[in-house]
């Protein structure tokens, strides 16, 4: 089984994140980059499915697919040290500034070339937070969208998931090939072992350019994006409110505030 896990490098959510003044794209250089947290669940899910396939006597391989600048190689290396077999890095200056729609086009082109039985993604990235990539890729690739999973089961070419809903879950079933996205807490992502870290150094990472993947440069990057940022500003700090110490009347004071604001 050919499993492709999408991994995005994002700025650390604990750091101060900013857009660049020049072109309103994310300033990726000034903050530490790491694997999008939700993608770690996708990697773990891919590894577990591959392990189960091998245990059942089937061949299985996990490929990491990352689109991003040079620096994203760090995230690829971490994914490989967790246990993925190889990686494809879509790396081209022409991709900078791509929006969701153009990113899905670029990734679909690569997926078409490298082939897949199962594509696994995190449910969203912590930087853009659109939550659309699995849906867009399923549409572009013409395969079922088996998204927002908090539990995944594979049985031959059948796939069954629990799709997280507002007040519970839906049971969803389909057949491979398919695009899956996983939500937080689907599993417990493993830490890379020392052996894994050493082994990762020898694992193959294929770099692809726009030309390699057959991507039309006019459809990606800032020029190819279907959306644009008009302006951006730092949110002004909230007006300092009133903070009181509880002197035995804290609850009553909250009630007074709520009543004055007509909440109670």
């Amino acid at each position: 089984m050919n499993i492709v896990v999408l991994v995005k490098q994002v700025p650390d959510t604990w750091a101060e994140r900013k857009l660049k003044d020049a072109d309103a794209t994310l300033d990726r250089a000034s903050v530490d980059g790491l694997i999008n947290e939700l993608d770690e669940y996708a990697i773990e899910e891919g590894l577990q499915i591959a392990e189960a396939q091998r245990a059942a006597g089937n061949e299985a391989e996990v490929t990491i697919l990352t689109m991003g600048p040079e620096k994203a190689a760090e995230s690829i290396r971490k994914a490989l040290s967790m246990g993925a077999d190889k990686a494809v890095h879509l790396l081209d200056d022409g991709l900078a500034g791509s929006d969701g729609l153009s990113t899905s086009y670029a990734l679909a082109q690569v997926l078409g070339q490298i082939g897949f039985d199962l594509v696994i993604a995190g449910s969203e990235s912590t930087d853009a937070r659109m939550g659309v990539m699995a849906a867009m890729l399923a549409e572009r690739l013409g395969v079922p969208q088996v998204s927002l999973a908090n539990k995944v089961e594979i049985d031959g070419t059948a796939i069954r998931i629990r799709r997280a809903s507002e007040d519970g879950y839906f049971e969803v079933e389909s057949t491979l090939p398919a695009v899956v996205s996983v939500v937080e807490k689907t599993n417990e992502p493993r830490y890379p072992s020392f052996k894994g870290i050493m082994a990762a150094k020898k694992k193959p990472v294929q770099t692809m350019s726009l030309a390699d993947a057959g991507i039309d440069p006019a459809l990606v990057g800032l020029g190819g994006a279907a959306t644009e940022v008009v302006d951006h500003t730092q949110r002004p700090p909230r007006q300092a409110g009133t903070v009181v110490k509880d002197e035995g009347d804290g609850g009553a004071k909250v009630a007074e505030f709520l009543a004055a604001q007509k909440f109670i």
Partner: protein
Amino acid sequence: MAEILVLAEHVDADVKKVTLELITLARRFGEASVVWTGAGAEEGQARLAEYGATRVYVAADSVYDDYVTNPAAELLAQLVKEKSPALVLVAGNAQGKEVAGRLAVKIDSGVLTDAVDLQPGADGPVAEQSVFGGATIVHSRVRRGTPIVAMRPNAVAPEPAAGDAAIEAVSLSADATGARITNRVVAERSDRPELSEASIVVSGGRGTGGAEGFGVIEQLADAMGAAVGASRAVTDAGWYPHQFQVGQTGKTVSPQLYMAIGISGAIQHRAGMQTSKTIIAVNKDPEAPIFELADFGVVGDLFKVVPQLLEEIGKRK
């Protein structure tokens, strides 16, 4: 007058509040045409009329309930081609955003998600988005195709207006299925409002000390008619189910009132609640960052402050 498509969210005949918000918003740009998938439109029609919907396209097929995302996106794509609307609005929850994403690919149009406001501009609608955990405000627009915007619930207040909500039956002309939904499981249906669209959210954090201590959060939520939220520390520890987590990797809420009880306000929590209109914090640590956001804060033991607050609410009822 320009036509605006609004994808309705409903549970049977009950129209969700976010849909009334979208209809209200659509009227800023033209005539609101609601797109209703599945059953219940006849019963829901009066509510849509009350908020100023001009018409309702009803696709009463079961395919929309049986398959994930694709049929609704295909129906919208078909209506975009037939009606040439100026704008398509969907609810900015996980499922709404997926429909928006698929639609964007189908009609090769730009999509903006998590908008907290939408205003007419010289080159089409301009969306306001609050990004990086609310630290940056971005205005953006669609420059190719028919703008598709997923609005964050509670972005606008629903305003009644006269409308006909004339029903027009529509159906899919193409096959659109994909992954099939075989069963729907409701975890625990409570009478509380849905977290992402509630007007008031009461959230508990590490300060509650455990699943037992979290009971006081539920009591306060019920007294306030609020939804219950939780910080990541709480859901990671298993004190409260994961689907109620508010924050960077959980739900983003934007209620009229957010009450953070025993929550320190780490940056990843703030990412999920920073755009709330009014914020109240109770925490025993005076240095807790949540107090920087709070309109009103009490430094104290939540197990003393909240019971007293409950008593006061009781007196005022």
